[in-house]
């Protein structure tokens, strides 16, 4: 179903207004619903309970705003150039509008991500193959460095030396490949 207001985006919000027994149905996208001032509490769908909850979590950022007011731009005027999503909208909906939102709102994301992911803010899982070998090499390098520390702590110096050599050759490899990529 297409949004009855902009007739472009998919209608993701559906509500029924009953005034004096007369029923009117609305099918709007989130952007138009917002512009028309409809409350998000009209969500009748179970699926949105999580998002409502999430929006609450994100809004919890308010005190942070004061703390960071001098260092960061005012989040209320922060807007993604690609999809026009404002930071305020993001905290209301709990979802990003596009990939670039992550960059636009980057400064405000770490505390949110920490709260959602048990204190974690950095990915340590799969890397898509297409992103090239450099990322894989860097990941391998990070793993080897950790291994080196463990080996040194356990005083296994012979194996540590092997790992150190591996690290060196990886770093050389990265330097060679990295010129354009790093």
């Amino acid at each position, binding site marked *: *179903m*297409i949004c009855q207001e902009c007739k*472009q*985006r*998919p*209608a*993701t919000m*559906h509500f029924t207004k009953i005034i004096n027994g007369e029923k009117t149905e609305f099918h709007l*996208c*989130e*952007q138009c619903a917002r512009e028309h001032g409809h409350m998000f509490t009209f969500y009748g*769908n*179970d*699926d949105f*309970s*999580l*998002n409502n909850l*999430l929006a609450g979590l994100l809004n919890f950022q308010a005190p942070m705003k004061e703390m960071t007011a001098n260092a960061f731009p005012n989040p209320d005027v922060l807007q993604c150039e*690609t*999809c*026009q*999503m404002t930071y305020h909208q993001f905290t209301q*909906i*709990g*979802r*990003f*509008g*596009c*990939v670039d939102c*992550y960059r636009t709102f980057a400064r405000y*994301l770490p505390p*949110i*991500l920490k709260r*959602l*992911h*048990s*204190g*974690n*803010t*950095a*990915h*340590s*899982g*799969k*890397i*898509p*193959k*297409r*992103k090239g070998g450099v*990322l894989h090499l860097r990941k391998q390098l990070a793993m080897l460095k950790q291994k080196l520390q463990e080996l040194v702590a356990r005083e296994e110096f012979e194996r540590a030396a092997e790992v150190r050599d591996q690290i060196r050759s990886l770093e050389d490899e990265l330097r060679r490949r990295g010129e354009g990529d790093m």
Partner: protein
Amino acid sequence: MSFEKFFNTAVSAWMSQEGPDSDIVLSSRIRLARNIVDFRFPTLFSSEEAMQIITLFERTFAHRSYGGAGRFELLKMSELQPIEKRVLVEKHLISPHLAEDSPFGACLLSENEEISIMINEEDHIRIQCLFPGLQLAEALEAASELDDWIEGYVNYAFDERLGYLTSCPTNVGTGLRASVMMHLPALVLTQQINRIIPAINQLGLVVRGTYGEGSEALGNIFQISNQITLGKSEEDIVADLHTIVQQLIAQERAARQALVKTLGIQLEDKVFRSYGILANCRVIESKEAAQCLSDVRLGIDLGYIKNISRNILNELMILTQPGFLQQYAGGALRPEERDVRRAALIRERLKMEERRKMEGDER
């Protein structure tokens, strides 16, 4: 359509196989959320963008075969009847959100229904692999291989620091949701479950009812999944969930033994009464059906009931949902009509077991 024919087409191929620990774990599922660069997320994308994404996947993957899973078929939500969409939801092949709220939603479904790729749900794609029993690592491997295959054709939104970029910040990083469906009647009966659920939640895992968020644990079936997607590797996420599931299996088995010891004949009586209801009822509501099915399944696991296949719980939990009932009836049904149909369908299914048993005996 004859019941047997309906039944054979309604039950996914993977469902009739037994997996490891399938006395307690019904299925393992891996879901990977992925987005494609150059398109806005489904929250804000235009209908043109949505259509381009569908076309991209249709051209690239529809009618193509993938390993043992068979050919992919593309189903557009806008072209499906409401009952057909419901059936897909009831089989856990698509989410309720895709069926109801995604006007540009589509789904690539493999022939054996082990793989489904939801298109234009909350993210551009959601890859899903379903395996019987406790096979999280296997399902992860299958999903990851499929992910690599798809990545050969499309450019994923990925950030070196944040990982796979998803529409919702709760999925960023691995985009991975691993979940298992568990049948835990003894933990419910001994009320231990009330103590266990909060403990599991504290470990960063979520316990939900059968059909996800907000749904009730019908028939003592619980879905347990990871909540954290950032900062842990896919393997670690799956391993952590696997560990907790194994502990739950051990606790459920211990509780079953304790119940047999303390209740004895009363437990057997409870099981056979439920069997009696299912075999003879003429009207039955979904809640009662689910509870009786849970009892019968427990009876099978405990060796009280011998002639019925173990899959009966998984199958009938799905087949007695409104979508399937209406598909079986060939049209829309009022709730009270569904209760009559549900009773008939369950009796038919049990009769089918008897016939199979008799044929087996003759051989």
